[in-house]
Each structure stands twice: as structure tokens, then as C-alpha cells.
């Protein structure tokens, strides 16, 4: 271990085992992360699977020019943006609020029970979550429509209504992730120095004021970091879940960039164009991340870099 100055060959020989250890991981990252990065060249090609990444004909920026005039892309982009914004407005604060409420529960058994239950949906697959949602919202036998009927309202065919899609998507996302998302904030709350609360109580601060003046400022760095990530993912949506929810009748609100790329690139035959759209979106996402990070840095001390 002290052979720091040993010649390289000797080191290699002595520690050959270490290099063989990293080799499989090195290769997997090379193949499944770096090869696809190189594969982005297909966005500048007329890519044909038989010709491969090296043999396909180069066409320059033609696919990127097509993006500008593509109305389906424009629709998908706007849908992504709206869905991302709603998600930041509703889904992002939900676990923070839940953590604050959990924190006010003073009976530990009750607290542990409700926490355990709230994490549970996170471990169900999206297929199951959306499947349950479809059953509950079904027109003929779903509980929601049974309820609407009983209260004298008309039944609603939720999954065929474009105006309901965003609500269902964000709502089911919150149902699935809010409990699990609260863990990280509870961890941050647990790390707060109890003396701060002590001092506040002596000064006569009630619990609401303690939450406003101690708890929230203390978890703010965590909130900001996660917010920056959320802004970076604002166009990413959770599009694989959308694949399970949407159908052509509601594309007007539910077709986002991710699903559009999937449809034309994997189900359809415009691989190169799809790759170009995907590349464009990654660039925009990085820009979102950098801008948010910059703003957060200006406003406070917390930022990613």
C-alpha cells in the first residue's frame, strides 16, 4: 500500500486484480452509456438499421430543420411544458406539505403506521397504478362514476376526455409518489437542532410559527436542490406512464415529447428524426437546469454548483 512511487508496470502487476475488478463495470458503462452517446450521430444521418451508425448517409441538419415546421412536435412540446408546470406547481410541494404534517403527529405509533402506508403505492408498478385508476374511473362499474351517479351528476368517461388527462396524470402521480417523496424532507427535519424549537417556545412562538420560522427555513436547502432537479426534468415528464394512460382521442393534451419520440422512433420508422427531437430536448433540459441553478444561486446560497 505504500508503493506510491513504484513504476507503473510494477503497480499494474501487483494490483492486476483491481483492474480486472473495474473492467466489467467499465465495459458496461462504455457499451450502454457511451455507445448511445456516440449513437446521437444518427440525428444527423439518414439512419438505416442495416447500415448502422457508421454506414448511414449523413444529411447534416435536415432533421432539425424539420422540427421547426412540425406541428405535431409543437403540440407535444406545449403539452410537455404544461404538464411539467402543473407537476412543479402541484406534485412538487405535496411531499413537503405531507412531511410537515407528519412532523406534527405526536403519537409515534400512529406516525409510523401512516408513514408506512403512505410509502406503499411507490412499490406498485405503473401498470398496476394506472390499471387501478382505470377500473375506479370506468363509466359503467367504476366507484367514481357510481358516486357521481348517486349524487345525481352525469357519468364521465374520464379516459376519453382530453380535459381530464392532466388532472388524472398529476393526481395519480401524487398518489404514487407523495409518501415516498416525504422521506427525504422528514430526514431533513429530523436533522434540525432541537434547541431552536426550545428557544422559540421560550420566546412564546406557537407551533405554526415554529413551522414557519424554524422548520421551513431549515429544510429550504433540500427543497431548493430538489427544485432545481425538478426544473431540469420539467420537459421529461413521466412519459412512460403516459404511454399507459393515453389514446389517440386525447392526444391533444396527453401527447408529450417523450411519447411522440417513442411513437415515431420505435413504433414508427422515423428513427433519425426522433433522435434529433430527443437530442434537442436534452439540450433544452440542460438549459432549464442551468438557468434554475443560476437563479437559485442569485437568490440564496443553495445551488448545485
Amino acid at each position, binding site marked *: 500500500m505504500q508503493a*506510491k512511487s513504484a513504476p*507503473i508496470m510494477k*503497480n499494474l502487476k501487483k*494490483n492486476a*486484480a*483491481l*483492474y480486472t*475488478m*473495474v473492467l*466489467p*463495470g*467499465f465495459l*458496461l*458503462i462504455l*457499451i*450502454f452509456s*457511451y*455507445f*448511445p*452517446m*456516440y*449513437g*446521437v450521430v444518427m440525428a444527423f444521418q439518414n*439512419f438505416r*438499421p442495416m447500415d448502422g451508425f457508421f454506414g448511414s448517409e449523413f444529411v447534416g441538419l435536415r432533421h432539425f430543420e424539420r422540427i421547426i415546421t412540425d406541428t405535431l412536435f409543437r403540440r407535444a412540446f406545449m403539452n410537455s411544458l404544461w404538464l411539467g408546470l402543473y407537476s412543479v406547481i402541484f406534485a412538487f410541494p405535496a411531499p413537503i406539505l405531507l412531511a410537515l*404534517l407528519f412532523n406534527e*403527529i*405526536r403519537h409515534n405509533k400512529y406516525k409510523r403506521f*401512516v408513514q*408506512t*402506508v*403512505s*410509502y*406503499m*403505492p411507490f*412499490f406498485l*408498478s405503473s*401498470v*398496476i397504478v*394506472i*390499471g*387501478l385508476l*382505470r*377500473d*375506479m374511473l370506468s363509466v359503467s*362499474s367504476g366507484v367514481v362514476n357510481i358516486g357521481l351517479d348517486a349524487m345525481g351528476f352525469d357519468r364521465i368517461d374520464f379516459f376519453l376526455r382530453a380535459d381530464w388527462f392532466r388532472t388524472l396524470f398529476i393526481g395519480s402521480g401524487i*398518489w404514487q409518489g407523495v*409518501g415516498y417523496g416525504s*422521506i*427525504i424532507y422528514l*430526514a431533513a427535519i429530523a436533522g434540525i437542532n432541537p434547541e431552536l424549537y426550545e428557544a422559540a417556545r421560550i420566546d412564546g412562538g406557537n*407551533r405554526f410559527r415554529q413551522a414557519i420560522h424554524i422548520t421551513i427555513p431549515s429544510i429550504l436547502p433540500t427543497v431548493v*436542490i430538489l427544485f432545481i432537479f425538478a426544473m431540469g426534468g420539467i420537459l421529461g415528464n413521466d412519459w*412512460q406512464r403516459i404511454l*399507459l394512460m393515453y389514446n389517440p382521442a386525447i392526444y391533444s393534451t396527453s401527447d408529450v415529447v417523450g411519447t411522440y*419520440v417513442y411513437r415515431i422512433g*420505435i413504433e414508427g420508422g422515423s428513427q433519425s428524426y426522433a*433522435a434529433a427531437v*430527443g437530442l434537442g430536448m*436534452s439540450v433544452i433540459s440542460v438549459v432549464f437546469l442551468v438557468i434554475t441553478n443560476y437563479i437559485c444561486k442569485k437568490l440564496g446560497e443553495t445551488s448545485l454548483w
Partner: protein
Amino acid sequence: MAKIKRLRRMQLFDWINYAFIGILTLMFLYPVWLTLMISLSDGTDVLAQITFLPVGFNFESYQFLFQDGRIFRYFANSIGYSVGRVTIHLLLTAMMAFPFIIADFKGKTFLNIYMVITMFFSGGLIPYFFVVRALGLIDSIWVMMIPGTVGAFTVIVFRTFFKSLPGELLESAYVDGAGHYRVLYQIILPCSKALLATFGLFSIVGTWNDWFTPTIFLRRQELMPIQIMLRRMLILMDFRDAENMDLQIIRTLVTSRTIRSAAVMATIFPVLCVYPFLQKYFTKGVMIGAIKG
């Protein structure tokens, strides 16, 4: 001390908060409860309105589901993929992380940059798909078990964890003449059970729930995992996996809806059984990740 002092008289806010959280908890449980009740209901009464308790009571949907042998195949595939993937994942991640704690190992900086780059840049779905395709992994069981098993984030967490282990353990082993592999397998890994349990469970649940990878990369029916069957039944309303169902419905108490619900319960039953016991590891996993982030 602070805890005890906070246990004062229940105020109005507490009652509202407890009630609100209680209602939320019921909302988390209700869909699963409802599905269980539907799966136990008689399907014969098509107008039956199931909201809280089953209409009738029977296990025919489950019998029906399992009487067609294919579901066992799907389950076996899912178990196989989960076990295979978690083994490869833990082994290769530990092997990639271990050399970072050895002073003699050259190339730490290079490997670190090599990994961090992948956290910020990726080729995107389409190039990834065609790379996997060019490698001949379509319709291969390995596509479920190999891609993405070694990721920058997990390696970094493993590395941090290994660094926190007492260094004397390693030194005495090396003095005794143990090789690097022996130190990893006989000293480091046995000391990292909590870490392995946490990331192992994440991986198993992730593979068990993965429906997207098999959707795009698998075609052959005999390779499909359970999520593909569920997707057909729940989302696509395709009942090829419950053959002759139309005939069966006439004679029995099942409908597509009760079968669907039974399939959901059968899939989440293993998860729900172990969940309360494993839950603490998941919580720990978030903490470990949070410290890094």
C-alpha cells in the same frame, strides 16, 4: 427531552391534522382494498356496484387465473430476471467501487470523471434502442439483466460506504497475505449487509415492476414477465392470457373485471407481504442517497 415536552394536550390543530392524515391513509389503501373485493366478487351480476364489500364471495377468479398454466411462466420469468439482475448489479457495482478505497489503485480520477459524465449526458432513447438492437440483445433474456446494472450513482454510494468501514480490517487482511478479491468478498461485503440489502431490494422491486424494457425489447411470449401480462389485461384489455374466457364466463362466476383484479392481487401480494418488514431498508436507502446528493 424535547420530544417529551412536545407531547402536550391535543389542540384543535392536532385533531384536524390527525383526521386529515387518517383520510389520506385510507385513500392510499382504498384502491388496493377495492381491487381485493372485486377479485372476490361474483361476476354474474353485471350491474353489481362494488364500492366497499364484495358482491357475493368466491375464489373462482383466482382458480381461473391459475388454471391456465401460463401465468406461472410469467411469474417464473419475473423472478428469474429479478434474481439475475440483482446478483449482477450488486456484484459488479461492489467490484467497481472497491478499488477506489485502495491507495495504490491508479486511475481513480479518470474513472470518476468517466462515471460522472454519464450522470449528466445520455444518448436518449432512440440511439440507446438501436445500440441494444445492434448488439443482438432483442429477444434475449440478458436485455432484462445486463443494461444499466452498473450506474455512476450507485457506485459512488458504494464507494462512500466502503470508505466509512474501519481501515484496520483491510490492513490486517492484507498483512495476512489475502488478495484483493478475497478482501472484497470475505471482509468488505460481509460488513456491508445493510447497503447490499437496501440496493438489492431497490433493484428487485425495480425489475419486478419493469414493464417498459420487455415492451420494447422482447417479442417472444415465453420470455415475457408478469408486468406484460398485466399490461395486456389492465391497459390493453387483451385477454389472450386467460384463454377461452368467453366460454368460461357463461359457466362460472368470473368476468374480465374479476380476473383483472385477481391478477393485480396475485402480483402485488408478494410485495405487500414483505413490504412492512423491508420498509426500513427503503427509508435507509433514501437517506444514503440524500447524503450524497
